[in-house]
């Protein structure tokens, strides 16, 4: 099963532990996480279901290609990592 892990920066607001989930695409894997942690969804996805502009999502260390529909395929051994570069003064 793919593994989904989240930046620790989110821990200030809510719990976001790594999870082994089902799913054949990035979107399905995230959806499986959000099904058990619905409050997490709004921190990662915008209102239309795409990745938030300044949130990065990597699969096995490479950036996801489809940030809007999250259709990149994932295999059972893949590691999804959700993070961001904190910016601002």
């Amino acid at each position, binding site marked *: 099963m793919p593994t989904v892990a989240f930046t620790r920066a989110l821990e200030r*607001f809510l719990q976001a532990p790594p999870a082994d989930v089902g799913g054949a695409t990035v979107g399905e894997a995230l959806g499986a996480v959000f099904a058990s942690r619905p409050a997490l969804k709004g921190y990662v996805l*915008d209102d239309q279901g795409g990745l938030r502009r300044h949130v990065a999502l990597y699969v096995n260390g490479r950036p996801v290609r489809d940030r809007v529909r999250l259709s990149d395929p994932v295999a059972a051994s893949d590691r999804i990592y959700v993070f961001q570069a904190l910016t601002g003064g």
Partner: protein
Amino acid sequence: MTDRIYVGTRKGLFEIARQKKGVWAIADVHFLGDPVSALLSTDGALYAALDLGHFGSHLWKREGNAWRELGVPTFPPKPDDATDDPHPWSLGKIWSLESGFVSGRLWAGTMPGGLFRSDDVGESWKLVEALWMMPERKQWMGVAGGEQPGISAVLVDPRKPDEIRVGVSTAGVWASHDAGKSWRIMNRGGMYNEYMPPERREDPIAMDIHRLARCAAHPDTVWCQHHNGVFRSEDSGLSWTEVTAIKPSKFGFTVAAHPRDRNTAWFVPAIKDEKRVPVDGKVVVARTRDGGKSFDVLHKGLPQRHAYDLVLRHALDVAVDGTTLAFGSTSGGVWISEDGGDSWTAPEGRLPPINAVRFAA
């Protein structure tokens, strides 16, 4: 209450408490490091809208001493045929939060211009689709050089809570008589917008409503700090008269209306739109007590040399007593008056840039 003030800043929520007459101090800090875009204190609860940037906007509520996250206003799926909509169907930030004067009802005005209503004291929110789906909304213009329009004010008539006025930067004043089911552009005369092309200067939808404030006891009296001047309405926002006596300048962002005296209001002017700093480097508050015919320029206790503080739309508030006031600046200054603005005091500390100031209710 008049002895506790909430200050929402770019890096946290600060609670300021009155120690004794004329002495105020920071009593608590919440969400340190996180931008707070809007505040509401009502019915014993405190609401804080966080604008987290990377991680979106979120709404938190404190009852007693416990904070918890609420549902957040979320736009519905964008229809496939909405490709000509210039504005995103996704929450930018919550910019105004108001009580609905009906049990459980709250209003949230947002960027990109969506108005949301909650009927369960903030647990869940629904987009007011009748306003969002009006064809005219596509003409709304972005605020502060940005791409997104913003609802800068939501006024609810305490006598008739279904009567709503919404001020938009930049799209004028919109009115609903049925709690949001139907809408029409409200401002029909008296306002003008100098930066628009000549043929659009008096177009109601071209008005940049920086902030609206209404007298709670006389809700038909509405004050407006507009992008290019101060205006007053005596018919709940239908017609407007420019208040030309405002001094030392007519540009500014904020206004507070006295809760009982329809003739008293406060403003914090800046030089002009392309020079958003106080006139002569002096922080002053302009107060009228005669309906805008004349103004006192109040400065006692405020910085009067090389002060470049700007006060944003939601960063001035008056308490229910009508004499205790507070405002905060983009330079992190906070000043409090207990005598209607005649004199001011500052709590110790240097705060981050301030977005919102509200007295505890």
